[in-house]
């Protein structure tokens, strides 16, 4: 049972129109460098002392961790309005929706494979804009995430740092002076900090220079991941670049490396590639962009990945000034709405794969010809 005084259990359907893209911070299209950077994200991994890590905790212990975390989050006051969801009590459709919105990870969606029944786990998310979220009982007891539209790792870090301090006044974190914040996976130990930027790099993909970026990032011990994090493909030419090492560097060093040095370099590289395409291969670029737009406004059946690929090229067309009647925010919003769970929520019923392809094509035609 939740501790007395905590927020009431949440109804299965979150009350803020979760199929709508308006509350999604990373789709707002505001802030710095939004022609290339969709969003900035800061994540902190934290664990409570006196409990085994989440993977080794019993269901009773996980329930206790969930209760303590819920109280701590309430005391810390992370936002004016928050929504608490016990993931183990939500429907599979709602879980999928939260994954597509980047509020929870696939791991939290799945839960522990070896467990019989549903394992206590939850998430707290700030409203009306989903800027802050705290996952409980994922790989670590607490995973605090702050997302900002555009390139704003500094702001995201400041907010995450403040919430972390507030949480820490309510609970004791597992910490050692030598290894810092102790985490279930040794790759997160130290600061427990991962900073990442979600970048739209269609021009680098077309010129083939994306491979150079990936290699350079690897050499600098950075990770390049797809749209939905670890192990996911870079659908829609969206890439997340993040730090890999968390021990031996201060938070300020990690921030400066990414925010001031690496991400701006990648942005410039993408802009240069866009300029090259525009000046040297103008007709071919025009052709590609308008073919994509034509396909999206004409198709009767379309798969999510195909839709993402063409939306990416239309977004490139908007950012390079070739397409003037659409906004990049509309296109980014559609990148979310074409995902299976959002599509079904928009339509209002469950659909099989073929029906989804049809509904997706209809939605795209409607939204892009408005």
């Amino acid at each position: 049972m939740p501790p007395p005084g905590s927020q009431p259990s949440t109804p299965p359907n979150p009350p803020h129109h979760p199929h709508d893209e308006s509350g999604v911070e990373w789709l707002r299209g505001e802030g710095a460098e939004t022609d290339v950077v969709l969003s900035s994200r800061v994540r902190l991994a934290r664990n409570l002392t006196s409990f085994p890590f989440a993977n080794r905790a019993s269901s009773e212990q996980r329930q206790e961790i969930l209760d303590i975390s819920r109280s701590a989050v309430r005391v810390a006051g992370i936002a004016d309005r928050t929504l608490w969801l016990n993931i183990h009590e939500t429907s599979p459709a709602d879980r999928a929706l939260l994954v597509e919105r980047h509020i929870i990870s696939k791991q939290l969606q799945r839960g522990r494979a070896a467990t019989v029944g549903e394992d206590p786990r939850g998430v707290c998310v700030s409203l009306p804009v989903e800027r802050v979220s705290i996952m409980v009982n994922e790989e670590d007891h607490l995973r605090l995430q702050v997302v900002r539209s555009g390139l704003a790792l500094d702001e995201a870090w400041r907010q995450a740092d403040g919430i972390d301090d507030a949480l820490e006044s309510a609970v004791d974190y597992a910490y050692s002076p030598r290894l810092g914040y102790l985490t279930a996976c040794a790759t997160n130990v130290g600061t427990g900090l991962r900073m990442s930027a979600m970048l739209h790099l269609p021009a680098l993909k077309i010129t083939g220079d994306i491979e150079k970026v990936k290699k350079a990032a690897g050499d600098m011990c950075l990770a390049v991941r797809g749209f939905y994090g670890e192990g996911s493909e870079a659908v829609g030419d969206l890439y997340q670049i993040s730090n890999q090492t968390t021990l031996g560097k201060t938070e300020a060093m990690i921030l400066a490396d990414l925010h001031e040095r690496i991400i701006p370099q990648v942005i410039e590289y993408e802009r240069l590639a866009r300029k090259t395409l525009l000046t040297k291969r103008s007709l071919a670029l025009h052709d590609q962009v308008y073919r994509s737009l034509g396909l999206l406004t004409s198709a009767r059946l379309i798969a999510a990945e195909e839709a993402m690929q063409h939306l990416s090229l239309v977004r490139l067309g908007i950012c390079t000034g070739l397409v003037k009647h659409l906004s990049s925010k509309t296109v980014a919003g559609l990148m979310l709405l074409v995902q299976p769970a959002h599509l079904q929520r928009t339509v209002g019923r469950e659909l099989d794969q073929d029906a989804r392809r049809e509904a997706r094509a209809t939605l795209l035609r409607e939204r892009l010809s408005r």
Partner: protein
Amino acid sequence: MKCDQCDNEATVHEVTVREGEKVERHLCEQCAVQVGIASESSQNPIEILKMIVEPPGTRQAKAAACPTCGLTFEDFRTGGLLGCANCYESFEARLLPLIERAHEGGLQHTGKIPTRLCGQAETSKRRVLAALIEERAHRAATIRKQLEDAVKSEQYERAAQLRDALQKLTQEQAAGDE
């Protein structure tokens, strides 16, 4: 020479001194295993190499579980996750090289300190300690590299010396942490 207990050739020779008297035993491999003065795996060259390269005590520790959560190092190798905060101490000797590799040589946290601990942490002392730890980590990395090279080029005597040096360094580190 024949085995003391059967007709096979004796390949294991044990000399002990009991109450001032020298006692010799000459056994074949099977009989030596039976009386417990040899193990079956000891003839495996890889195992012998492991004995040279791995510090003594490591093999026993391998089976030992974290006293707090019961996770063994083998569990960790399989699942990739530690079981509790105390695992970091329980498996320190084997974890630190992995951590060092994963964090580009980082072995000392230099970031945020929980507010509740700020009062306890004497800043200057911490800085000195951090510098010391870093220096040791650097030395350990160098020795580890030399050890790998020595094993590769089959210089086992040098490998053993380097292993001892590495072990001494780890002990210093552990003593420094207390």
